[in-house]
């Protein structure tokens, strides 16, 4: 171990039931930690509220995308049909919000979908190839029957001993420090 350079990433504790995880998450939140995460093989209802998560900010990207799309559609139609190359088609006006509405509408949906997808990527910091938490020897079990709470070193309240003993206190079974090796 000593010849490999590594960076201390976090303290991790495992739990063996969703209830233990849920209760422990409440205590971690109460204690005031901010940079931490839960891992679970199954969806645990209410865990996000227990962890003190607010609602996702993705819808804001969706709305912004939708509005951008709507006006982009308008701009395209106005530029092509009324400004750059005015042409009468079917006796309709050069520009009107009615006949090209499908264009506005489709671009609204397209850009809203882009906003949602890329907004989600942005907020999740995706795509990424690796994550330090994979270094935990039992991390694979959080896809099977283990639950895990990970408190990052980045957290202002983090302290090697204090955090580890706190994790034991809230019911963590094997508490260990995750280190990310650097080649």
């Amino acid at each position, binding site marked *: 171990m000593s010849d490999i350079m590594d960076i201390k990433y976090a303290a991790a504790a495992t739990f063996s039931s969703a209830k233990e995880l849920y209760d422990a998450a409440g205590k971690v939140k109460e204690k005031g930690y901010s940079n931490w995460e839960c891992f679970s093989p199954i969806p645990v*209802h209410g865990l996000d509220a227990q962890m003190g998560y607010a609602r996702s900010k993705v819808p804001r990207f969706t*709305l912004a995308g939708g509005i951008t799309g709507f006006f982009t559609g308008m701009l395209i139609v106005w530029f092509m049909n009324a400004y750059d190359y005015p042409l009468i088609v*079917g006796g*309709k006006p050069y520009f009107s919000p*009615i*006949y090209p*509405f499908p264009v506005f509408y489709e671009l609204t949906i397209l850009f809203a979908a882009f906003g949602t997808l890329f907004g989600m990527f942005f907020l999740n910091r995706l795509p990424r190839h690796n994550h330090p938490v994979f270094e935990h020897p039992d991390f694979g079990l959080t896809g099977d029957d283990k639950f895990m709470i990970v408190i990052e070193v980045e957290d202002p309240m983090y302290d090697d001993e204090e955090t580890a003993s706190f994790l034991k206190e809230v019911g963590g079974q094997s508490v260990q420090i995750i280190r990310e090796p650097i080649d």
Partner: protein
Amino acid sequence: MMDESSTKDTSPKGLSTKLLAGSVLGLGGGLVGLFQGLQSGDKAPFLGWLWGCSFWLSIAIGMLMLIMIFRIFNSKWSPVVRRQQEHALSAFPWLGLCLLPLLLVAWFGKDQAGILWSWINPASPTIEVSSIISVEEDVLHQKKAGYLNLNFFTLRLIAYFGIFCGISYWLRKASFSQDKDGDPKWTHLGTKVSAIGIPAAALALTFGAFDMFMSLEYQWFSTMYGVWFFASGMRAALAITILICVYLVANGKLKGLFKQAHQYDLACLSLTFTIFWAYVSFSQYFLIYSANIPEETFWFTIREIDPNTGLRSGWFWVSMGLIFGHFFFPFLYLLFYRTKVDVPKLVFIVCWILAFHLLDLYWNIIPGREIVPGAFVGYEARPVIGSHLLWGVFSLVGVGCLCAWAVIRSFQSGIAEIIPIRDPRIRESINHHE
């Protein structure tokens, strides 16, 4: 406890009596209007009557479709909500009864038979380009006479209500019987009834909308019309469903059973059908606008301008009101999460939607071409405000009270538990989570 139950026993009876009194008053007033209309040849009370019926009918049809959709998707969250909607289905026979006077006039009205649906009377005056002719001379009626004739029309109306009442009966039976014996066969029956019922009810409501509302101007046609009626009905039914559930939570019956997650999902469906309504309504306008065929465009023209002067009429503002009030405002409002989970905010918008739904039906049913021999184009468009509104309010209240009475009677009859306690999905529905 004793006191509370005894007051609960007496107050519903008082409410039933009040509702029945309201329906007698409303329908009685409306009937006076119909009678007077027959005497003087005034179409207004008939249009008002149809408008009043259409509002409640659209809600009942929306409820029916929602139940069948919940059934066919075997959705886990819906049973708690579905039970409340099943009670609403008990309004159908009464709605059929409310439409009966219009049919009776069509059969026995003699020279006034075509007072509401002009094509029923071959001698009714109608417009061809801008000359006044009779219905039987009109080639646009001659070509449609195989469909638009009184016998077939009557048969169809009976068939529509047969379908609505029949499906309602079986859906209610399947659901309520399961409360007693818990037999899963009732769930299978409900699914089967829905599988047959969705296409049957879809056809009935589409052709029902064609027959009752679109044929008011028999020369005009739109294949989107049935879909429009469906979308409107779904919006109104979702609004009423939310109101019923929120009320039952407030008075304790559904407290803890109807959760925020149910309310959120119903609100999301409201948003969906707000968009769908706009999509359908706009498509109808858009296609007619693009094609620009006179026998189609006149329908929208009389909803924008006075055909004799070319100036904007009151209907223009109603049309604008629908675009902004029935689509843009509810759409933008319902986009936000808080407005869907906060009870007062959601109640506000569903009441708003119901009010604009009423206006939407008004906009679809009331404006029509009144033959005026001296007018420049041979007709005048019926104005926004007129006696049809007054008569409409009578039938709106009358039919509404009658339907509310039937639904509340079903709620209080003890025929069913407050939720389908033995539905295989009930545990998942009660534990529904966002």
